[in-house]
C-alpha cells in the first residue's frame, strides 16, 4: 500500500508547481471586496423602510424531515454535517433584494449552497415541492440567526427585524423565516400573526 510519506511528498511536490501570482490576485480580490461593499451600500440606501437583507431559513421540522436527515447521515457520508445543524434545518440562505447572494453567511462552516436557485420564488418552489414536508416553527429564524451568527437578535434590533412568515399549509407546507431591516412595527405584527 502507498505510504503516508509518499502521499505527503507528492502533495507538497506538486503544490510547489503552482504559480503564485499573488499581486494580481490581491488586486482582483480587492476589486471584489469593493464591489460587495458598493452593492451592500446601494441595498441599504434603496431598502429604506423595506427589506434590505433577508435571511431565509428553510426548515423541515416534522418527524419525516428528521428521519430524512437521520437517514442521510447514516447512508451518505457527504451529508454528515447536517447532523450538527438544528433538527430538520436543511438550508440557510441569504437573500439580497430577492436574490440569493450567499448560502452560509449565517452558518460559517456549513455547506448550504444556493443549488442554482437564485430568487426567493425559485426557493419557495423548491421547498414546497420537497417531499419531506414541514410544520411551522415560529422561532426557527431567531434560533438559526443566533446560533450561526453568534449574535442575539436583541443586539441586532437596530439593524434587523425578525419576521417569521409562515407560508403554505399542511398540503404544501413550508416555512420561510426572514430577518429584515425594517421597523419594529413589522416585527411586532409578524410575531403576532405568527402566533
Amino acid at each position, binding site marked *: *500500500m*502507498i*505510504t*503516508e510519506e*509518499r*502521499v*505527503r*511528498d*507528492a*502533495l*507538497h*511536490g*506538486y*503544490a*510547489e*508547481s*503552482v*504559480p*503564485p*501570482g*499573488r499581486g494580481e*490576485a*490581491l488586486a*482582483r*480580490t480587492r476589486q*471584489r*471586496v469593493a464591489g*460587495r461593499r458598493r452593492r451592500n451600500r446601494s441595498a441599504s440606501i434603496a431598502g429604506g423602510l423595506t427589506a434590505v437583507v433577508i435571511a431565509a431559513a428553510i426548515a423541515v421540522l416534522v418527524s419525516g424531515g428528521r428521519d430524512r436527515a437521520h437517514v442521510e447521515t447514516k447512508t451518505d*457520508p*457527504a451529508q*454528515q*454535517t447536517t447532523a*450538527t445543524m438544528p433538527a430538520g434545518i436543511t438550508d440557510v440562505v441569504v437573500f439580497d433584494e430577492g436574490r440569493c447572494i*450567499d*448560502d*452560509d*453567511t449565517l452558518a*460559517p*462552516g*456549513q*455547506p*448550504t*449552497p*444556493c*443549488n*442554482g436557485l437564485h430568487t426567493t420564488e425559485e426557493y419557495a418552489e423548491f421547498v414546497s415541492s420537497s417531499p419531506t414536508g414541514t410544520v411551522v416553527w415560529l422561532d426557527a429564524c431567531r434560533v438559526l440567526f443566533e446560533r450561526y*451568527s*453568534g*449574535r442575539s437578535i436583541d443586539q441586532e434590533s437596530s439593524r434587523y427585524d425578525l419576521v417569521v412568515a409562515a407560508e403554505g399549509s399542511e398540503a404544501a407546507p413550508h416555512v420561510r423565516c426572514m430577518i429584515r431591516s425594517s421597523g419594529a412595527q413589522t416585527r411586532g405584527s409578524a410575531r403576532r400573526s405568527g402566533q
Partner: protein
Amino acid sequence: MRETSKARDVAWEDLFESAYERLLRFAQFLADDGSEAEELVQEAFVRVYQRWERLEDHSAAEGYLRVTVLNLARGRVRRRIIARRHRAVSDEYAPSAERQVLAREGDRAIVDAIRLLPRRQRECVVLRYYTDLSVDETARTLEISQGSVKAYTHRALETLSQILKSEEPV
C-alpha cells in the same frame, strides 16, 4: 470609524499576503481546475473581509478561510458531481505546460489519483498530508469524529494504491 476600517484593511491585506499562496495550493486539490481554485480562495477572502469584526480570534482567520474554501468547493462539486462521474480527471484539470515541467511525473500521478477519491477521503488526505493537520484538527475542521478521519484516510490510501496499481504498465 474610519480608523477602524483602515486597520481592518491593513490586517486583512496582511492576512492575504501571508495566507493566499498556501490556501491556493490547498484549494487546487479540491477544485476542478486552477482558475476555480483561485476563485474559491478569493471568495473566501472576500467573506472573511465582510465578517472581519465578527471573527473573535483573528489569529484563527486562516483556519476559517480553509473551512470556507472547503465548503465553497463542496457546493460547486456537488452541482457538477453527475457530470464529473462521466469525465476523466485529466480532462478536467489539464495541467499547464509549465506545471507539467515543474511537477514530477510520479507526484502528478498520485495527485491525479487523489482527485479521483470520494470527497471525504480526498479532504482527509489533503488536510492530513498537505495541510499537516493532526487527526483531531482534521476532525474538527470537517466536523466528523476522529475515528471517521482515521477510517477515511486509511480507505483513501487503499484506494490510491488500487488506482495507481491499475495504471501501472502491464
